[in-house]
């Protein structure tokens, strides 16, 4: 009897289904718990991958809970690709909608931070501009420059204190999170992603730069909504984080 890979998959992911007939031991008896090796390998290896990828979530809900929840997630969302470094893209939304975790509303956004850290780690390399490159531009050209942002740069926005939640669970001695919205920037100077707290309006400002706005357009757009927008602070973070990869400007008219 031929067992299809669909039948094998169903029995492998759902331990309550019968083991397909036609799988045998050396004496021709039903394979029985030999089949569990596959059930176990798949569940354990995918759970391990999730735990490695979302260490702060595991810390926030406890390892035992994390592994139980991962077991539910991996059956609903097995990897769509063998490139496991990006496994778990659906995990933030899953946590947000998972009934037993409704009292921990921030988990989804913290999981997004952990996913963003992985994307930053594996992003394409790019050469940053020299730290004094902005200072070299004449004051009359400065408003008209356009800047490209490094592929490793990640920006996140949340109604929860995502930076402090991440840092409190990752950095020894970081103060306890207080309620409130936070925005985050992740830069990668060489190989290690570095999270920062972003000052107000910076998310819109960086999005405008990525949308090819000039420095003055991006600043104007941002200050319309955020009167306290601190251009110097965000430019400082981008420059020290090797986040700007080129500056272009048309000749002044």
């Amino acid at each position: 009897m031929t067992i299809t890979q669909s039948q094998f998959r169903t029995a492998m992911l759902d331990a309550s289904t019968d083991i397909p007939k036609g799988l045998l031991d050396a004496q021709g008896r039903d394979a029985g718990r030999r089949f569990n090796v596959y059930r176990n390998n798949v569940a354990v290896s995918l759970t391990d991958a999730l735990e490695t990828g979302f260490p702060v979530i595991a810390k926030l809900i406890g390892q035992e809970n994390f592994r139980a929840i991962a077991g539910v997630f991996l059956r609903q969302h097995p990897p769509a690709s063998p490139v496991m470094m990006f496994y778990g893209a659906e995990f933030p939304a899953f946590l947000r909608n998972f009934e037993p975790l409704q009292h921990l509303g921030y988990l989804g956004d913290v999981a997004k931070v952990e996913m963003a850290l992985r994307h930053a780690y594996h992003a394409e390399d790019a050469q940053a501009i020299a730290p004094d490159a902005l200072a070299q531009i004449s004051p009359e050209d400065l408003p008209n420059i356009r800047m490209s942002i490094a592929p490793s740069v990640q920006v996140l926005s949340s109604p929860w204190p995502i930076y402090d939640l991440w840092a409190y669970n990752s950095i020894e001695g970081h103060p306890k999170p207080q309620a409130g919205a936070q925005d985050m920037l992740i830069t990668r100077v060489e190989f290690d992603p570095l999270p920062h707290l972003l000052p107000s309006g910076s998310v819109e400002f960086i999005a405008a730069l990525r949308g090819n706005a000039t420095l003055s357009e991006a600043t104007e757009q941002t200050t319309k909504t955020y009167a306290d927008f601190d251009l110097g602070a965000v430019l400082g973070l981008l420059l020290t984080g090797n986040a700007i990869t080129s500056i272009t400007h048309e000749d002044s008219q």
Partner: protein
Amino acid sequence: MFDVTSQFPNLPYMPGVGYKPQHFSEITNNPGSVGWLEIHAENYMGHGGRPLAQLRHLAERFPISVHGVGLSIGGEGALDADHLSRLKHLVEWLKPTVFSEHLAWSTHEGAFFNDLLPLPYTNATLDHVCAHINQVQDTLQRQMMLENPSSYLAFDDSTWCEPEFLREVTKRTGCGLLLDVNNVFVSATNLDYNPRDYITAYPLDQVGEIHLGGHDEDQDDFGKPLLIDSHGREVVDPVWALLDFTLDLCGPRPVLIEWDTDVPEWAILSAEVDRAARALSKVVA
């Protein structure tokens, strides 16, 4: 951006090791008996950053074997075209010395299970395995090697024994073989046959690489030993003896130590590599 051009046309008849990033400094500064490195293709399919920078650096100093764990050569459905093109991209910039994959399936209807799943050895399986190997070799424009699996159970509809199945695959596709001696020991224990008979029947003239790794021990429903290919500990003595038996039959080959889970400090892994070097030194070419 990537311009590694391999200056290594063949893997040397020396021990190699499955590369783990935590051993980068030790391998770079004091490789000991290590003559080549193996990487898992899927771990180097990001866009940049440390993994690719380390690999670029290592490829200038060591022959590299790229070992795929995600192509699902034995899948009933078509190969994942996106994955095959990622692999092509990796192989084109890295120019590894060899590329190998498994006689197994791991993807079905778009879902990847991160494990090497078993196949019945039937004519139908033979046809689609060979079609997939042809597609891989045509896409990569190079020969690949196929590795024998670890078995925990058998299929009642198999009509080929594994060594003959693999021999037929090499005849039809021109692919080479990778012989995992630990997998032979695991399968032979689990399915009650003599591992030496298996190796004697294996097409040893097609073997371009040998793997060794550690396994775990469990029991089946009847209390019989059930060995599990975990790559999480030292290679056991009977597997070292089986390596000696193999090398006596086929002569020296590149021999890899695999240790993928609970990865130890370099000194422990390096001692395994030294033991492989001693096994190779006893063999006359």
